[in-house]
């Protein structure tokens, strides 16, 4: 019974495929998978917009939207109708073709990233040998569309926002990739379903997830920081800093094109949370061995939603980083930590089983963390605050 529930979507797909001649079955399976991904993640996007606005509101000591449905749950419907019916304003001197293509390319690149996510047992759309590399390649393609959006608007603020966004995304792409390389090194494969399988199995009731190892935990934190930056979320949301650049690179977009940027940004959040759960949190595996009766796809979505809640939580809590602080952080702290983390992961692998490797690896990472932090803060003098008032 638990196994049927676990594989219910795979069985449904096979059942629908059985109505068609054998030559068409693979194509029909792919079409069903793509339709399922689009529907499920678009629905999750709608849910997340409400969650974010209510959550941020509560964190800022106010209510958030509560008019449209019970507790404001139908707010996305209202937002969707608004976005669809707003006038689509394109500036006169804007580059119309590039202005039109930018949100499309953004959305397509982000949606392609979902193709390799193992949503449940046997439930990935494509099992590629180099699946993780495919995901990072699609992430890199989104940067180009950000630039296209900013440049085609013929607006200084958009261009500035786009340059900042691209600089930020490129700087944090290196730590993103390097922190997942530690996982790839230990798992021995770039294929995401096989990375999930490498984390299967339980000792007693405890799972073998990579986040429970010192290097895995460090990787997880570094990957999380880089993920915040790749999706332009607070505290790294200077490109779309609402109080500084109007809306950054999508200032000149209105109506449905803005909605497409919005959707693509949130879908990017989902896909990077999906990759983080696959690499670090064991993908669709249950946290304790007695909980494996609950279907694998439920666990995957629970973990992804936990990440989304963390994204929203950090957005409501931390102040925004300045551009130079952001870049300094990336190149002087996060990147050396990811390189050291690679070394520690290798050390873990070759030290053999036992308690010694836990102590040595944790010690190296902690000392590096504290040391690098102290060295970076050496040149910044924090005295008492001084205020200058207008006379």
């Amino acid at each position, binding site marked *: 019974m638990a196994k049927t529930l676990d594989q219910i979507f795979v069985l449904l797909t096979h059942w629908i495929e059985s109505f068609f001649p054998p030559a068409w079955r693979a194509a029909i399976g792919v079409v069903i998978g793509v339709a399922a991904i689009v529907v499920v993640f678009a629905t999750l996007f709608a849910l997340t917009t409400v969650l974010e606005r209510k959550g941020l509101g509560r964190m800022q000591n106010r209510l958030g939207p509560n008019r449209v449905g019970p507790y404001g749950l139908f707010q996305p419907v209202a937002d969707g109708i608004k976005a669809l019916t707003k006038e689509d304003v394109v500036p006169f001197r804007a*580059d119309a*073709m*590039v202005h039109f293509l930018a949100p499309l390319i953004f959305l397509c690149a982000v949606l392609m990233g979902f193709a390799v996510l193992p949503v449940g047992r046997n439930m990935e759309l494509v099992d*590629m*040998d*180099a699946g993780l*590399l*495919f995901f*990072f*390649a*699609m*992430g*890199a*393609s989104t*940067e*180009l569309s950000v*630039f*296209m959006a900013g*440049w085609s608007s013929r607006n200084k603020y958009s*261009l500035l926002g786009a*340059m900042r966004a*691209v600089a930020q995304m*490129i700087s944090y*792409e290196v730590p993103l990739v390097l922190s997942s390389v530690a996982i790839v090194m230990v798992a*021995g*494969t*770039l294929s995401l379903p096989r990375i999930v399988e490498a984390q299967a199995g339980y000792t007693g009731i405890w799972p073998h997830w990579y986040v429970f190892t010192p290097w895995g935990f460090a990787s997880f934190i570094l990957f999380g920081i880089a993920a915040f930056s790749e999706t332009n979320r607070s505290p790294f949301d200077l490109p779309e800093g609402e109080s500084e650049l109007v809306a950054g690179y999508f200032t000149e977009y209105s109506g449905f094109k803005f909605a497409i940027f919005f959707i693509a940004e949130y879908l990017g959040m989902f896909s990077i949370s999906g990759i983080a759960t696959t690499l670090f949190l064991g993908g669709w595996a249950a946290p304790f061995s007695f909980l494996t009766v609950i279907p694998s796809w439920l666990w995957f979505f629970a973990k992804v939603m936990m990440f989304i809640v963390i994204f929203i939580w950090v957005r409501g809590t931390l102040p925004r980083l300045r551009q130079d602080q952001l870049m300094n952080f990336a190149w002087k702290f996060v990147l050396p930590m990811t390189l050291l983390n690679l070394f520690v992961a290798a050390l873990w692998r070759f030290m053999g089983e036992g308690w010694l490797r836990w102590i040595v690896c944790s010690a190296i990472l902690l000392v590096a963390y504290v040391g690098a932090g102290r060295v970076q803060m050496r040149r910044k003098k924090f005295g008492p605050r001084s205020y200058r008032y207008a006379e």
Partner: protein
Amino acid sequence: MTVVFWILAVITVVGGVAAVTLKNTVHCALALTAAFAGLAFLFLQLDAQFVGFAQILVYIGAVAILVVFAILLTRGSEKPERGVFSRTWLAGLLIAAAVFAVLSWAVLSSAAALPGAGEVPAPSVSVAQIGNALMGRYVLPLEILALLLTAAMIGAVLVALHEKGVRK
């Protein structure tokens, strides 16, 4: 030659031709990106997964962005006054045709020189095999590449530092 190959080939060639004939330089850069994407998908069609995705990651994700940044930060984004074609376009065309002829002769003759060409299907190379080869047989080129990249990074830092010194 399947339909997919023809579609990808058309995309690549049209992207390349557009990259040299369009008037707006940023449009040229975007057309070049389309050509890169076409090449990457051709690699994927040949079942070279690692090279295809690395092409997307490196060319579209980094080189194309570098090209557009360079266009933006120089005066290339203004309209060219005298049109995009130089006066010696015929000589350029002849030289390009000669290079193409040499390259295609080399490729076609090397394909014919393989023993039993066409009978044995190409081996499917996995990423693990590429990794092993890089760390085993080709470790010296890998280290030289690392030196080259380090030199590039040091050069970039030096260029940025020099600007700060001049301004002070």
